[in-house]
């Protein structure tokens, strides 16, 4: 029998409902797996007491026959989500010791659905990073390895991706501002969905760039993503940008039938210097979808090239504003002050000590592009380019395209520390295929599709129409079945 912690959410749900095992047993299996996986550095705050109490309550609901799909399912929560009474510090020193008095809407909805929180997951500081190396807790190590190098799980939701890939939990929450769910999913052979902007409430999630941030599920299968999204989504009066739209039964939309769907292949995603393996996998993905009855259509998204520079104006601008709240007054770290220091000294010293190098850089870039004299040249121009990027997608969808297939990342997972001395811009290039989706507010999903020549997972990305996550996951499910990706990292930790 499969170890309980290795089950998919759908199999665990069915097993729990049949009474094959209990939520307490399932939770204990995950807690034991976490206990033995310290080397991965994925879980950074452990909550076994909460997990055991919620598992026992879930068993009660299961016995009473009134258990929703996520009832009794052990999950991890990214450290960016505020969880009542449990450390929530966005992997930053500046939020050291912060224990929120409230629960984020998304983690609260999951708890209400009976999901069992095992603990908080590591990430890049304030979700700014693509390798998990900006975390105050130190980097997560990818459970996949092919030689003696420790690899990055990607970022920023690297702890979530690693925990799901290593069977420490059955699913995890992530957040995605420029690719922070999809890139780590691709690096770890897992599935990650960024929903349409507004599908999940942002309330209680530490804000990075509010017009781009969106929470989503990270799981081992597309079906599990559909199940978990159903519990996370929905209108929230506390987030004025959350959409007041019904949440469909996403799982029921996985019909396996994509005949007649029109799948776009955007010419501009064929980048110079893209590894042949990625190019070949992309072609293979298109062939799989064609074989399933979809029509493959060459399309053009002409402003793709400008997405990354536009993103690196808009996201830091919003971050500089959002992160102004970390001033050493209301929560978290406050610097030790010298005799005679005034309040500005307190702000400056606190923020210099509390923020890591990448966060400082982005806050300062954001401050610069918003400052008098540069606002129009950078910030307004970037927002105009954003309009054009969104228009590219709208025109493709108006022409009858149902979904767009692209690579998820420009490479497989790289070694921790390998880009340490590189220009910050080189790290930003990791998001080249994913940022467009955030700028346009669309749903996007990364699906594991194969292994590279060295045996590391590679993912493909599907991009859908706004609010059509169900249709998008239907295509993703077909892609997943065709790829038949079943590889798991061999346990070394």
């Amino acid at each position, binding site marked *: 029998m499969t170890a309980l912690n290795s089950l998919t959410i759908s199999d665990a749900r069915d097993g729990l409902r049949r009474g094959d095992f209990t939520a307490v047993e399932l939770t204990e299996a995950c807690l034991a797996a976490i206990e033995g996986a310290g080397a991965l550095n994925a879980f950074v705050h452990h909550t076994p007491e909460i997990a055991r109490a919620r598992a026992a309550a879930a068993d009660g609901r299961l016995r009473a026959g009134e258990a929703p799909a996520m009832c009794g399912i052990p999950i991890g929560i990214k450290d960016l989500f505020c969880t009542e009474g449990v450390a929530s510090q966005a992997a930053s020193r500046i939020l050291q010791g912060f224990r929120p008095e409230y629960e984020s809407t998304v983690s609260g909805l999951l708890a209400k659905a009976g999901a069992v929180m095992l603990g908080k997951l590591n990430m890049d500081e304030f979700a700014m990073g693509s390798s998990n190396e900006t975390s105050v807790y130190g980097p997560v190590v990818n459970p996949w390895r092919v030689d003696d190098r420790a690899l990055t799980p990607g970022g920023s939701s690297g702890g979530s991706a690693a925990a799901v890939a290593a069977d420490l939990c059955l699913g995890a929450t992530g957040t995605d501002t420029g690719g922070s769910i999809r890139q780590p999913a691709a690096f770890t052979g897992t599935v990650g969905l960024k929903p349409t902007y507004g599908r999940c409430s942002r309330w209680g999630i530490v804000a990075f760039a509010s017009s781009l941030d969106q929470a989503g599920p990270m799981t081992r299968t597309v079906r599990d993503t559909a199940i978990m999204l159903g519990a996370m989504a929905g209108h929230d009066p506390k987030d004025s*940008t959350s*959409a007041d739209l019904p949440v469909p039964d996403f799982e029921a939309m996985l019909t396996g039938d994509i005949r007649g769907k029109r799948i776009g292949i955007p010419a501009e995603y064929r980048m110079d210097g893209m590894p042949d393996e990625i190019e070949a996998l992309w072609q293979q993905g298109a062939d799989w979808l064609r074989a399933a009855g979809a029509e493959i259509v060459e399309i053009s998204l002409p402003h793709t090239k*400008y997405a990354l*520079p536009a993103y690196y104006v808009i996201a830091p601008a919003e971050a500089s504003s959002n992160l102004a709240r970390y001033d050493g007054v209301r929560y978290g770290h406050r610097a030790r002050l010298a005799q005679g220091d005034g309040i500005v000294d307190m*702000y400056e010293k606190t*923020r210099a000590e509390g923020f890591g190098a990448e966060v400082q*850089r982005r806050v300062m870039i954001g401050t610069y*592009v918003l*400052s008098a004299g540069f606002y129009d040249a950078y910030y307004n121009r970037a927002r105009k380019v954003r309009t054009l990027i969104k228009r590219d997608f709208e025109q493709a969808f108006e022409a009858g395209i149902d979904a767009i297939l692209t690579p998820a990342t420009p490479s497989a997972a790289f070694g921790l520390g390998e880009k340490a001395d590189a220009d*910050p811009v080189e790290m930003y290039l990791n998001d080249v295929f994913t940022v467009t989706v955030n700028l346009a507010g669309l749903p996007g999903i990364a699906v594991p599709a194969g292994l590279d020549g060295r045996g590391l997972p590679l993912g493909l990305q599907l991009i859908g129409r706004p609010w059509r996550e169900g249709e998008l996951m239907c295509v993703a499910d077909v892609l997943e079945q065709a790829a038949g990706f079943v590889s798991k990292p061999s346990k070394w930790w």
Partner: protein
Amino acid sequence: MSEIDPETARKVAHLARIRVADEDLPRLAGELSGILTFMEQLNEVDVEGVEPMVSVTPMRLKRRADGVTDGGMPGKVLSNAPDAREGFFAVPKVVE
């Protein structure tokens, strides 16, 4: 157009309320310049007549009654403060 010199870096750091030591300013200025150079690709785009995006989803923000919905919990509000005294957040002297 956007070579950032150490003096500009000092101003930006101060605007951002982040203390940067003098000896670190040249390195910071170099990094910021590199990032801004990367952004300058945006100048190639013809944005004539294009509206800057305000909201990615065309939706009217919901309205609600302008009323008090929560409150009366000073203990909870102050529970995470580095320095709280007598029901207030305490900070160094603001006015001389």
